[in-house]
C-alpha cells in the first residue's frame, strides 16, 4: 500500500497537531498542581535540615505547609551578607529564588536565600539558619540545605539531594544514615577559619572526636568530594552573613 507524498504529509501534520494539542492541554491543566508539588517538595527539603525525615513523611501536605508557615521565615542576602529586598526593580523572596539558576552567575552576583527556623509563630526566637547549597556531584547536579545552629558554627542537620548520582553509591547522600553524620559537626576551626565539614575517603571509621570530618561513602569518593566542595563553597558565599550574625549575637550576649 503506497500512499502519495501529499497524504503522508497531511497525515503527519494532523497527527502532530492533535498530539500537540493533547500534550499542551494536559500541561495547562496539570500545571498548577505540579507547581504545588514542586513547592511542597522544596519545603520538605528545607524542613528536612531541621526535623527528621520520618516526621516529615508522616505529615500530610497541609500539615507540611502549616508547619512551614509557622516555623520558617526567610530572607535574601548578597555575597556581602547584606539583605536584598529587590533586584532590577523586582521584589525578591527567598522561596522564589532558583538556586540552580543563580549558580550559573558569578558568585558575587548571586542572590543567597536564608531560611530561618524559629519557634512556632515567633520569628524572634530563632532556632537555626538554613542555607541552600548547590554544586556538582559525579554525574549531575547535587544540592541541599544545611542548618546552622544559632552559634553559627554547629551544624544542626543537612538534607542532600541529587539529579543523577549512582544508585547505591553516590545516591546514598539522600539517606538519613549519611545525612545524620553531619549533625553536631562544626564549620569553624579553633582559630576561627572557615573549614567546613569534610567527608573522608573510605567508610567505617569513627570521626566522632573530629569536629570537621565525617565518615565517607565507600565507592562514592567523587560524589563525596562534590558534596565537600559544595558545602565549603556555599559556606564561603554565606560567610559574610554568618559573621554578621555571629557578631550581633556576641553583642547581644554582652
Amino acid at each position, binding site marked *: *500500500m*503506497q*500512499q502519495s507524498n501529499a*497524504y*503522508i504529509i497531511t*497525515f*503527519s501534520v494532523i*497527527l*502532530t497537531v492533535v*498530539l500537540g494539542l*493533547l*500534550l499542551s492541554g*494536559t*500541561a495547562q491543566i*496539570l500545571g498548577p*498542581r*505540579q507547581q504545588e*508539588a*514542586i513547592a*511542597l*517538595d522544596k519545603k520538605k527539603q528545607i524542613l528536612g535540615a531541621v526535623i527528621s525525615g520520618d516526621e516529615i513523611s508522616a505529615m500530610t501536605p497541609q500539615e507540611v505547609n502549616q508547619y512551614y508557615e509557622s516555623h520558617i521565615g526567610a530572607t535574601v542576602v548578597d555575597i556581602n551578607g547584606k539583605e536584598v529586598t529587590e533586584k532590577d526593580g523586582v521584589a525578591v523572596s527567598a522561596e522564589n529564588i532558583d538556586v540552580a539558576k543563580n549558580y550559573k552567575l558569578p558568585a558575587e552576583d548571586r542572590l543567597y536565600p536564608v531560611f530561618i527556623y524559629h519557634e512556632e509563630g515567633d520569628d524572634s526566637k530563632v532556632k537555626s539558619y538554613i542555607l541552600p547549597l548547590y554544586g556538582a556531584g559525579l554525574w549531575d547536579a547535587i544540592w541541599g540545605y544545611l542548618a546552622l545552629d544559632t552559634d553559627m558554627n554547629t551544624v544542626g542537620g543537612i538534607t542532600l539531594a541529587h*539529579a*543523577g548520582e549512582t*544508585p*547505591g*553509591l553516590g545516591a546514598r547522600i539522600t539517606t538519613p544514615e549519611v545525612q545524620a553524620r553531619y549533625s553536631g559537626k562544626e564549620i569553624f576551626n579553633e582559630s576561627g577559619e572557615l573549614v567546613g565539614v569534610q567527608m573522608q575517603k573510605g567508610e567505617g571509621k569513627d570521626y566522632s572526636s573530629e569536629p570537621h570530618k565525617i565518615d565517607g561513602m565507600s565507592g562514592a569518593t567523587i560524589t563525596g568530594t562534590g558534596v565537600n566542595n559544595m558545602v565549603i563553597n556555599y559556606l564561603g558565599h554565606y560567610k559574610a552573613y554568618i559573621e554578621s550574625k555571629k557578631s550581633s549575637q556576641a553583642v547581644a550576649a554582652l
Partner: protein
Amino acid sequence: MSAETIEKAIEKKPAEAFLSKRRKKLVTDPLVDENPITIQVLGICSALAVTTQLKPTLVMAISVIFVVAMSNFVISLMRNTIPARVRIIVQLAVVATLVTLVSEVLKAFAYDMYKELSVFVGLIITNCIVMGRLEAFALGNKPYDSVLDGLGSALGYSWIILTVAFFRELWGSGSVFGLPVFDTVSGLFGPDFKLATNGLMVSPVGAFIILGLIIWVQRTKTGYVEH
C-alpha cells in the same frame, strides 16, 4: 482496496465471545511462554534500573501497562490510515505522547515517585516491548485484540520486574514495600541476632543475578530452548 474486503468478510461471521479462547491466549501467552523479559529478553534496561525497591517498580509496571495497552489501541485504530513509509515515526509519536502524559500525571499527583523514577518513565518510549508489540501486532489486528495483546505483554513484563524488585528489596534493603522485614525477623531471635543486607542487591548487578535465576528456573520448568 484488498484490506477492506478482508475486514468485511470477517464482519459477517458471528461475533466472537468477549473473552474467547483465542483472546485469553493473547493475554496469557506473554505471561510465561512468550514472556517479553525472560524469553524475548526485551525491556531489560528498565528492569535493571528501577527494581531496587518494590514501590517505584509497581508505579513503573502500572505506567508500562497503561502505555503498552493504550498505544496498541490507538495504533490499531489508525492502522488502516497510517502511511507505511512513516509508520515507525507515527508509532513513536503516539508512544511518546502517552509516556509524556504518564510523566506529567506522576509529576502532579505523585511528585516523590516522579523524582525517584526520574528518567526511567521517559525511557518507556524506548522500551522495546512497546514498539515491538505495535509492529508485530497492533498494525495488523483489531483494537480490542490489540489492547488484550498489550495487556498480556505488559503484565508479563510487570510480574517479572516485581519479582526481581521483591528479592532485591528483601535482600538488599531488608524490607518489603518499605516494611522492615529483616529487623522484625531478627528481633524475634534476641538483640544479638542480626540479618545482614547484601549491598550487591542494591546495585544493578543484583538485578542481573536475580533475572538470570528467574530465567533459569523458568526455562527448566518449561523446557524452552533458544533456537
